């Protein structure tokens, strides 16, 4: 695919970070717009729904704050930028460089996450100001494992969107396919409710999809809720290893169909 090395990775990240800093206000607004877990927390606690899943108010608060953090660092939008670039022929110069263009998009996402970090911390501090009892500091081990799980969640979503993005070599409006995934992602990922709140027979089905490993698993891990660490990480690795070859194949087939439109 391409020969990545440390120098390339650092330069890519540095340049994309400088670029993202140009959009810091926009990114701050995006960070604020991601507070949906806090609304859900409000709904859950005001209606005492947490009792049905045997979770205390504090643990539920921590879960939704963790969900907010996981979401902040796993947001993916590659399908939209790639689609525009492909349809307008903007990827042409990138295709003729010895680096797969998706590395550029990947670096853009990572740079955006770094830019989001201070805003996410400020929002968390404000949250703790109003929910002092929810404050906690996870152990270093749990924190690092949560970071890894969040990164895996980001990778899964990046690969899913990249595969869909490659479909624009055939359908031109691939982002509409991505919208089909919006509802299952919203409900089954744990963003609106912890997956544990679903009936058991539904849960058994949900756990064989990639969705609960996007938010629910890393958020439970970070907040200290009960979760199966090994099975969660293994499932994430499983989905990454399934999606990566699919992406590679779709990419190589798609580029053969590329017509470099718009130029």
């Amino acid at each position, binding site marked *: 695919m391409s020969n990545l090395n440390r120098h*390339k990775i650092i330069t*890519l990240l540095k340049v994309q970070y400088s670029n993202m800093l140009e*959009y810091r206000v926009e990114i701050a607004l995006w960070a604020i717009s991601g507070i949906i877990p806090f609304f859900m927390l409000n709904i859950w606690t005001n209606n005492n729904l947490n009792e049905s899943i045997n979770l205390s108010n504090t643990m539920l608060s921590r879960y939704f704050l963790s969900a907010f953090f996981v979401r902040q660092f796993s947001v993916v939008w590659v399908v939209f930028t790639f689609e525009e670039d492909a349809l307008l022929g903007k990827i*042409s110069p990138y*295709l003729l460089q010895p680096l797969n263009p998706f590395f550029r998009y990947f670096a853009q996402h990572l740079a955006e996450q770094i830019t989001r970090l201070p805003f996410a911390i400020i929002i968390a501090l404000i949250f703790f100001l109003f929910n002092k009892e929810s404050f906690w500091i996870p152990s270093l081990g749990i924190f690092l494992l949560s970071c890894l799980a969040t990164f895996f969640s980001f990778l899964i979503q990046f690969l899913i969107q990249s595969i869909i993005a490659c479909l624009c070599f055939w359908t031109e409006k691939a982002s509409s396919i991505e919208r089909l995934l919006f509802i299952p992602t919203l409900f089954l990922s744990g963003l609106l409710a912890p997956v544990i709140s679903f009936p058991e027979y539904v849960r058994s089905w949900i756990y064989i999809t990639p969705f609960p490993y996007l938010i629910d698993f890393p958020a439970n891990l970070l907040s200290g809720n009960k979760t199966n660490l090994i099975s969660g990480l293994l499932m994430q690795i499983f989905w990454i290893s399934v999606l990566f070859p699919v992406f590679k194949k779709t990419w190589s087939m798609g580029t053969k169909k*590329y017509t*470099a439109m*718009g*130029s």
Partner: protein
Amino acid sequence: MKENIIKVENLSKSFDISSKDPGLKGTIKHFFKRETKNIKVIKNITFNIKKGEIVGFLGANGAGKTTILKMLCGLIYPSEGKLAVAGYLPYKRKTNFLNNITLIMGQKQQLIWDLPPIESFYLNAAIYDLEKFEAKRRIRKLAEMLEIDKELYIPVRKLSLGQRMKAELLAALIHKPNILFLDEPTLGLDINAQRNLRKFLQTYNKETNATICLTSHYMKDITSLCKRVICIHKGCITYDGKLEKLLKRISPVKDLLIICKTDKDAKELCNLGFAIKNKNQKEITITIKNDAINFTLKEILNKFDIEDLYINEPPIDEIIGNILVKEKV
């Protein structure tokens, strides 16, 4: 003898293009049943290009020039035929091949819009595995040649079109490619910027012996850079050879502007049976075949009292404009 760096044999390219009838009926029909036609835009073309050559591709809009460049640089797959550039199959886009080529499109940009060009240069340098010191040296040298040293630190969005085009060129040449594919590189530039860019390309070709394939609608680009041209008409090659020879073949005439001393001479001159192109009191422009120039000049100078005389080539744009719409040259 120089080796062929680009070899093209019976190359063709077809596209599936969907068509839609106008109006609501057409839209509904298109929604349920899409009609696609397979259109062959490049038809069995064959040519070779030697190392260090500058070749201009001439043709009207939609003739297939850009499609040929896209196939040569590996951006799109050919439908049929054989193709080798620097010994590689371009569409495989192998790293060694990509390190050897560059494509510059007048209407497409690769620079990051909100950052100064220097950031994009460093990024490209890293992508092509250039050492930091070497990258800086090349950027400095190219910036001097292109005269954009001062613009390196200004965000791209604040640069003028000419400055941006120069920066694009620098970004595309930082890895010192041996083969340059230029698709209308002077598009939208003012006359000075066009001239500077042409000068730069000539110097680059001279210094690095790079092969350049160029398409342009500005005839000055072609005449000042290319000794050889390939004319494309509806996906076929209608001429492949020296530009000079083509111009002679297409336009075997010259314009002679004669300024007579008296009105009487001017009147008499008009009655000699020359093909008169223009007449303005004592100034007469006649068109003469190249092989009759000596004889005609002698005759005119012997018979009339001439104040001044000019021999002009017909405007190149006029000649090439005629070539573009011809099926055979």
